[in-house]
């Protein structure tokens, strides 16, 4: 029982963190059909910028400045770099963002070193939100979750209730039509890319104080974020939220469960046989908890590529 409740809490907060990063990615893909490989690098960039700023001006300034800086970087990328390769197709855009991811990672290593940096949350936030089963539940986790929820709400309201939002959604559906109606589509694209990047930067700034801020955080999170975006449906914000929670919960629960295929065979009495075969059959769920999301992504891609809630195919 305790395990279930704690795992649920952890899963939800981790899932919300994944959502913060994947929201921007799914928006960008939905809008421009560009799978931004540099998105996880924006996350990392946000953490490092927040670290650099907060060590001089304080934590809250860091959190404020980081998304703005990363958003500007995103806008610059969309304005100056992506249009050049647009004519050569999606593959080239993909590869360009991939190259950018490499460059950002190497630049960060150049300036900040190849090891974790000491980006900490402020003392004011370092307390337990509540006591559960004898141990405290850190408030900062809830803080991350809260930021994610606020972000989702703001985005949702922006997209559905404002004029800008309507224009953005129109540009996603039928860009040429929207342009014919007089809207400045390139500016819209730039704005969306910048916002997506800023969201990732915010996620990095907030999460970097909790998780270690190091040059590998981009790669580590990057692949999982792809899984989330695919499973949720490329382009769907709601799908991204659902998929993030799903994967977050799954990762949390899986590490506590020592199930294996062999142990399932125990039910029919073939457990010992399965164990003697070894290999895949004896792999425990807890050991391969990081592998399952890829299997899930594969299944979704093959069975229902639109993902749980996506519309495009």
């Amino acid at each position: 029982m305790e395990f279930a409740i704690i795992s649920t809490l952890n899963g939800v907060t981790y899932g919300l963190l994944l959502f913060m990063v994947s929201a921007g990615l799914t928006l960008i893909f939905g809008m421009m059909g560009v799978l931004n490989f540099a998105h996880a690098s924006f996350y990392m960039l946000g953490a490092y910028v927040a670290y650099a700023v907060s060590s001089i001006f304080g934590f809250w300034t860091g959190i404020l400045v980081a998304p703005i800086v990363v958003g500007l970087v995103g806008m610059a990328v969309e304005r100056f770099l992506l249009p050049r390769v647009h004519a050569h197709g999606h593959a080239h855009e993909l590869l360009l963002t991939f190259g950018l991811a490499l460059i950002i990672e190497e630049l960060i290593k150049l300036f900040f070193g190849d090891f974790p940096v000491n980006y900490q949350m402020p003392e004011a936030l370092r307390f337990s939100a509540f006591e559960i089963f004898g141990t405290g539940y850190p408030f900062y986790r809830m803080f991350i979750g809260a930021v994610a929820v606020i972000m989702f709400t703001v985005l949702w309201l922006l997209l559905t209730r404002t004029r800008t939002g309507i224009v953005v959604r129109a540009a996603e559906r039928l860009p040429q039509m929207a342009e014919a109606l007089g809207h400045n589509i390139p500016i819209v694209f730039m704005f969306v890319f910048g916002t997506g990047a800023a969201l990732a930067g915010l996620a990095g700034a907030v999460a970097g104080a909790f998780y270690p801020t190091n040059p590998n955080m981009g790669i580590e999170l990057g692949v999982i974020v792809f899984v989330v975006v695919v499973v949720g449906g490329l382009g769907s914000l709601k799908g991204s939220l659902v998929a993030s929670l799903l994967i977050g919960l799954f990762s949390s629960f899986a590490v506590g469960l020592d199930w294996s295929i062999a142990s399932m065979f125990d039910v029919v009495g073939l457990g010992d046989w399965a164990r003697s075969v070894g290999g895949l059959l004896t792999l425990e769920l807890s050991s391969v908890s990081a592998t399952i999301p890829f299997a899930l992504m594969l299944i979704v891609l093959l069975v229902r590529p639109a993902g749980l809630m996506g519309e495009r195919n």
Partner: protein
Amino acid sequence: MTKFAFGAAMALGAGTLGAATSQAEPLKIGIIESLSGSQTSTGRLYARAVKYGVDRINAAGGFNGEPVQVTEYDNAGGASEAADKFRQAVADGINIIIQGASSAIAGQLTEDVRKHNLRNPGKEMIFMNLGGEAMELTGDKCQFYHFRFTTTAPMRITALVNAMKKSDALGSKAYAINQNYSWGKDVQAAVEAAASEGGYEVVGEVLHDVNKIQDFAPFVARIKSAEPDTVFTGNWSNDLLLLMKATGDAGLDVTFATTFLDQPGNIANAGQTALGHYIANNYDNAATPTNEFPEAYKAATGAYPIFVEGHSTFALGQLQEALSTLDFKGGDINVTDIAMALENSVYQSPLGPISVRKEDHQTIRPVVVSKVVKGAKYPADGTDMGFETVEVIPGEKAIYPVQDNCQMKRPNA
């Protein structure tokens, strides 16, 4: 045409003969390290310490009438790049290869060295392993030309158990959380094996994916439900950091017995959570009886030795010890003789004697057990915390038995 060729051959021959008599063969050391990629910070520490050790040898006159030469090769943290650099080292005439940052690369290099020595009798190379702690390197893969100048999982765990038990910090229930690869499994096995000696019960153990877990909270929940007193872990880098952070956040009251808490950045990142936890390693500044060694190191390189630098310097010191017993009189260097000399060498490190066990070429060496405290003599990572020595376990007590699967083939001396 043949006359020309003959003349050229004579000239070449005369040239090389002249060269041989006029210039002694220098000893060439190659550091094949992770100088870029994710393990860079560790790799560069190894490189720095080795260079310091070589400088000390050269300051004492070098070897064979020439200064010892050191070349760095960057393996970028990858095994196949390491193989490439190994070939480059062979091409450059390197006699001794040194590596420390990765057990996997150590596994690769020891095999490369073994095959090279088989195929090129007379041009053997030695592999000085400063950091690969996988048991198989002195087990299944043991070979005459490999020397391990560091601890292994059983040595560290034995030391931790002994020291913590003596200072009453061990408790009666232990949990082992480790990374799911050879090192982690070695640690887990060592924790199980030391249970009776330590007087504790292993109440739970888990292996997790290496460097993939972002959120250790679920593992902390599992640990908590087992209610241990001590948590043993061989985790390093992110895996250790995240584990400790998650434990601190959950307010879980356990003592950590670690092996890599002194990795640069860990103390700073863990903050207050690190206080009161234990580590077993090859060297710590606070464990030296006088501060002669740390001060000398600082004078030469600009900072006190941290993490892997201490024992790497000792390894070079041991090499120096071995070389002092040899005299090639300015002629060709016989690497097998160097290996023999290394086998018989005993190095008096500031922490105690280090000798080489002939059966598997594991060094019998003291292991330091320390605790993280505030206001330590040598603060770590620019914080106010550092390591305080609990006990230095002498080599004979910390060593593990020779593994059955080590069948070392000795050269026909």
